């Protein structure tokens, strides 16, 4: 297992290197260069332009510039953003990346969990009206034009029902005169939610070893203590209502992204389950007289999980793209929206920075999926 993980990490670093190289040369091949943005001032004489070019390093050959850029990248220096001048690109990324990560991770986990459960149940009830209607609904969600779907969600939940705010990260009226800034609250939210999830996860894995009678109580107790502790923490900090405001803004984008990703997982789980149900060990389990639900949850669905785990690697790009669109529609100031606005105003350092971040996110998720896959399927580990 360790050798496998080390090999995958090494391969991923190589892929990341290829990715950023491809990004650099793709953007370098665009008409005009970085200097044109500074050099468009007509008062500058040709000599001054030449000096500026030399100072920016734009007169050097492309491989030299690439080497320098790579050197700076590993120093953690991604340059200065034009549209957020004079902030560093890295600074902007550090501020906005957590917002994207929250959206991405929460939506992915809930989509996979819900999709897997729904697909499992769907495959068990083959045929009839339920199957067709759910499949059609699933395909509709999977292929729906995402900006339109997001707008419908905004229109329905925020505009008509008024449950949620329409887009944006926070409500400036509430935040007027706030003692702390948004990033302070947001980072604390992240850490506290992460600790709570870890606690609940630990109580789940602890409960699995107990006998069925105690299991339920332990799980409920774990969830109650976790959520109670979270609530207590936010009440005592005194900035609870700011945290609530951010969370309130977060629900609708997560819901949208989850729904869109959920459908594909559901359809795939269903197909995978249909193949698993035909295996001999399912017939054996039936012949033993096991309960239907035990066969479904313990015999069929665990083996049907493999293709779903593979699909995560394939669907990663889809989820990231969905994130960009969702962020744009909801004006959620994460990396996706940053990338789009930076690209529209030719803020090349910011674009490269955002793409490097996206590549990094994709590769890390890919690595985690790979390790999880090896954990699920021993055949991968030992080859």
């Amino acid at each position, binding site marked *: 297992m360790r050798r496998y993980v080390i090999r995958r990490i090494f391969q991923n670093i190589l892929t990341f290197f290829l990715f950023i190289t491809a990004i650099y040369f793709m953007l370098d091949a665009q008409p005009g260069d970085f200097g044109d943005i500074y050099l468009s001032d007509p008062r500058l004489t040709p000599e001054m332009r030449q000096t500026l070019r030399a100072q920016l390093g734009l007169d050097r050959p492309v491989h030299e510039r690439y080497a320098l850029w790579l050197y700076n990248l590993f120093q953690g220096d991604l340059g200065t953003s034009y549209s957020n001048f004079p902030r560093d690109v890295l600074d902007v990324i550090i501020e906005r990346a957590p917002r994207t990560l929250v959206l991405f991770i929460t939506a992915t986990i809930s989509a996979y969990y819900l999709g897997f459960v729904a697909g499992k149940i769907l495959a068990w009830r083959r045929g009839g009206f339920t199957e067709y209607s759910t499949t059609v609904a699933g395909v509709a969600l999977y292929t729906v034009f995402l900006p339109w779907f997001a707008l419908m969600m905004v229109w329905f939940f925020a505009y008509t029902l008024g449950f949620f705010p329409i887009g944006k990260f926070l409500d400036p009226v509430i935040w007027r005169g706030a003692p702390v800034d948004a990033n302070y609250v947001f980072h604390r939210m992240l850490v506290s939610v992460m600790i709570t999830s870890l606690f609940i996860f630990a109580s789940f894995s602890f409960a699995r070893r107990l006998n069925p009678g105690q299991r339920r109580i332990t799980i409920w107790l774990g969830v109650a203590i976790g959520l109670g502790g979270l609530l207590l923490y936010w009440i005592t900090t005194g900035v609870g209502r700011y945290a609530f405001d951010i969370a309130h803004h977060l629900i609708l984008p997560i819901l949208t992204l989850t729904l869109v990703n959920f459908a594909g997982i559901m359809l795939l789980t269903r*197909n995978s389950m249909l193949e698993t149900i035909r295996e001999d060990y399912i017939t054996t389990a039936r012949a033993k007289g096991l309960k239907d639900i035990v066969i479904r949850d313990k015999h069929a669905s665990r083996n049907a999980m493999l293709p779903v785990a593979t699909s995560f690697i394939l669907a990663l*790009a889809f989820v990231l793209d969905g994130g960009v669109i969702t962020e744009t529609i909801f004006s959620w100031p994460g990396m996706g929206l940053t990338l789009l606005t930076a690209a529209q105003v030719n803020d090349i350092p910011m674009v490269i920075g955002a793409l490097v971040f996206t590549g990094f996110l994709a590769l890390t998720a890919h690595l985690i999926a790979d390790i999880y896959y090896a954990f699920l399927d021993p055949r991968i580990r030992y080859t």
Partner: protein
Amino acid sequence: MADVTQTPPQPSESLALEVPIWQKRIRLIWRQVRNNVALFAENPIGLIGLGIIFIYAMMIVIYPLLIGNVWDPNIYHPVVGIDQSLPFHPAAPSSDHLLGTDPLGRDILSQLMFSTRTAFILGIVASTVTLIVATSIGAVSAYYGGIVDTIFMRTADLMIMTPTITILIVLGALISLDIFDLAVVIGLLSGLGAATIIIKSQALTIKVRTYIEAARVAGGSNFHIITKHIIPNLLPISFLYMMFTVSAAIGIEAVLSFFGLLDIRMSWGLMIRTTEYSGYLLDFSKWWLIFPASLSISLLTAAFYLVGRALDEIVNPRLRKR
């Protein structure tokens, strides 16, 4: 080679020659097509998809007939037409404008029908590029293996992880992309990515079949074996991936024109963009501005996806119902 051709005449030769070989071949193909059509027709989901595609294809046929004869080009032109008889735009649906007009006074139905052609051209070009790229690379890398295989498979790994829309947003913002550029880029990205891996794994199972051995023993060159034996057997699964590429391409185009990053005159995505920058985006009482275009994008994407799924059940018998 010479030895093979000089085999003694078979006793059944006269019998076999009664029916020429091409007739037999056609009959075989016809039988296969009939079987597959029957399988396809069993599945209502595939038929629904085909029906939707047919309806939109009809729009392409009807549109040129309408625009010159029934509709006055000055009023109904999808890009520059304007109906000056109406006092206020966007106007609600009426007998003149079945789907109303947009904020610039252009007829929505006319725009919708005009854009259908754009969507189909985009889908067909992108999927053809995918078909050619994925099938040839899949066949070549499965057949030769080794370094060729490694290079293409690592490229595919990279392509799978590349968020297409994100990359295209950057490209679209920096250079001017028209519909053909976009189609070729989408075709290349999807052709070098997941489609290649799946087609290659199919090609690997074909490569070890006995008829490939037979062809090699008979002296067939590598080129002959790949083009005459491997690729024809890969076509069903490649065709399946064409459907998914069409579906993806239409969706990507819509998103990009919605963001205003494409250099095209009219498309469904652009219709929604017009709505957006005129400030009617959340005004659903003027539903004709956003619903026809969005629904068309979703429906046509879903239709190609459904046809792909139905074809999947033909190509991949394990998914069929018992």
